[in-house]
């Protein structure tokens, strides 16, 4: 079964290689790239099914045994993330068929998109810290090129900020990896779960903080988020959507992984810091959004505020809170990417993202207005949409442990999110068209397909939240007790030594 664990990475890599060879044959590239994402989501779904039926799956590349070789581990959290990557891949690949211009395709959009997918899935599945660094670099390089493809001035400006800050993050990450190896002599995460508790606590806390900074930059946490709104409004919408959906979530995933599996020696210290960061992230993100007047910049700032909710779930570190964090990630990826895709269609109509130059879309395109309302209301947390359940679970988890200040912050930020969404609604859809602006005819139906699909998924998560919550609960249970993870990678004897001091 081990090939299945590697499949979500190997498939996009192989397709990327094929697409490089087919460079210049646009139609073939479009067909293969789009079809492969359908295969990717199918394989990922099978992987999640197998994991939920038979427990954690492990692959050892080259048949080098753990902890010496590189392990790929698919537990519930990894499998969920891989499935949602597949869903996003299909949605943005279909959207890209009408959104990415032939120039960008000639420059290599299709192979780079596949490399990006391989990097994201690699980061989700690997069970080795250094290998995770490698996948972070793969996705960073691919995303940097995708961001600047087309060479427009604002793209380069955003791209340089993006890559400079992310390289700092990589550097901190690499330094932290070096320290971990120096302290424990291993980088296999399951092995580390056994050995880190035996290391001096103060030193481990320092290393934990380095990881928090490195992944905090990737996840756009307060106060390290500034690269995100500086760059996410520059590329075409198909690229911005997969960035907005997936890239910060790779950082969130990495934080959840290391702060449940590796750094749980002093939860009262590390996770309290995370809770403060979560609160500040929510507030600064939502206030930043309120100050913006550009469709995409508002959405970019809202990524930041929503990341705060996920980190809040992690910081509370109870089964319910982690369940909420996992559920929140899934809900948010779908909703946020969808809003970026809707913004792209709005621009086709009105030729701008500037809210002052938008208007009258409700009269002209009522269906699009509904398609905007579903993810917008879900993001703001209106019952019974997916965002309501996500917010409800993390807030309940906070109330359970009596963390009332963060409950208050979460609720106020939710209100301000409604303000931002109604601002877009008011300016772009409800208010009359400003003078001198002409609306273009309805854009291609193919652009609507992924938006409709993601909106239906949002509704499905809202109305039939049971199965989704059950999978998230399974993920949370595994995260709270790493024994199963260690046993799957290293065997029974090693798992028995968890938490034992030498």
């Amino acid at each position, binding site marked *: 079964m*081990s*090939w299945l664990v*590697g499949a979500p990475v*190997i498939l996009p*890599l*192989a397709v*990327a*290689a*094929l*697409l*490089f*060879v*087919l*460079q210049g044959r646009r139609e073939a590239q479009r067909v293969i790239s789009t079809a492969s994402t359908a295969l990717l989501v199918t394989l990922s779904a099978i992987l999640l099914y197998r994991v939920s039926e038979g427990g954690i799956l492990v*692959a*050892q*590349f*080259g*048949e080098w045994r753990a902890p010496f070789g590189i392990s790929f581990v698919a537990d519930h959290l990894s499998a969920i993330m891989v499935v949602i990557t597949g869903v996003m891949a299909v949605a943005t690949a279909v959207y890209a068929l009408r959104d990415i211009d032939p120039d960008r395709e000639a420059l*290599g959009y299709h*192979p780079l998109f596949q490399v990006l997918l391989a990097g994201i899935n690699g980061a989700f599945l690997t069970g080795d810290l250094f290998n995770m660094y490698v996948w972070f670099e793969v996705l960073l390089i691919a995303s940097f090129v995708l961001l600047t493809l087309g060479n427009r001035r604002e793209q380069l400006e955003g791209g340089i900020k993006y890559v400079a800050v992310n390289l700092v993050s990589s550097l901190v990450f690499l330094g932290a990896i070096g320290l971990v190896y120096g302290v424990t002599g291993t980088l296999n995460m399951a092995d580390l779960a056994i050995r880190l508790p035996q290391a001096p606590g103060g030193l481990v806390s320092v290393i934990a903080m380095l990881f928090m900074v490195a992944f905090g930059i990737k996840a756009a946490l307060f106060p390290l988020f500034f690269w995100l709104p500086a760059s996410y409004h520059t590329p075409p919408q198909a690229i911005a959507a997969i960035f907005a959906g997936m890239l910060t979530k790779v950082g969130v995933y990495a934080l959840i992984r290391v702060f449940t599996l590796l750094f749980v020696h002093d939860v009262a210290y590390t996770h309290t810091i995370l809770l403060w960061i979560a609160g500040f992230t929510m507030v600064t993100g939502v206030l930043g959004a309120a100050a913006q007047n550009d469709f995409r910049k508002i959405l970019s700032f809202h990524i930041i505020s929503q990341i705060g909710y996920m980190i809040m779930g992690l910081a509370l570190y109870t089964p319910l809170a982690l369940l909420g964090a996992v559920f929140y990630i899934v809900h948010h990826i779908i909703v946020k990417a969808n809003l970026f895709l809707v913004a792209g269609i709005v621009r086709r109509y009105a030729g701008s993202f500037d809210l002052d130059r938008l208007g009258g879309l409700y009269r002209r395109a009522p269906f699009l207005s509904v398609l905007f309302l579903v993810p917008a209301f879900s993001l703001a947390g209106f019952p019974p949409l997916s965002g309501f359940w996500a917010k409800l679970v993390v807030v309940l988890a906070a109330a359970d442990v009596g963390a009332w200040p963060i409950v208050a912050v979460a609720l106020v930020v939710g209100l301000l999110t409604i303000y931002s969404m109604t601002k877009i609604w008011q300016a772009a859809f409800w208010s009359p068209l400003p003078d001198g602006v002409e609306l273009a005819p309805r854009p291609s139906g193919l652009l609507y397909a992924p938006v409709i699909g993601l909106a239906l998924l949002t509704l499905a998560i809202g109305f039939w939240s049971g199965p989704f919550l059950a999978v998230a609960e399974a993920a949370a249970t595994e995260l709270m007790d790493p024994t199963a993870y260690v046993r799957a990678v290293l065997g029974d004897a090693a798992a028995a030594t968890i938490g034992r001091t030498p």
Partner: protein
Amino acid sequence: MNSLILRSATQLLLTILLLFSFFLMLRGHDLPGGGFIGGLVAAAAVALYAIAFGYRAAQAMLRISPRALVGWGLLAAVASGFLALLQGQAFLTGQWWIVELGGGAELKLSSPLLFDIGVYLVVVGTILTMLFALEER
């Protein structure tokens, strides 16, 4: 650059450099060398040719676009991993085929070799893509 000495020397050196790059690549399994360094030497050989005869001549000599080389190299590297799957082993597990050449000599072919050839092609392709892009400016 229009220099008779450079052109004459390049025609000789090109062959030697390319042969040396293959040698480095094949040597790399147990000794210093490998696909990466071999690819760099091969790219240097083509770069020398481009300096002596102009980059259009170098492109014509290559016959294949450097980007396609990157693609074929990646394909070779990924394919070397799939060979193990066909044997029912984990992805990337090394596969060996030993060919008897008679007289006690044997030729060891392996999936790591295929992987290294892939790396070689990717490096040549990447460096030449950059080089030609700079030349076109």
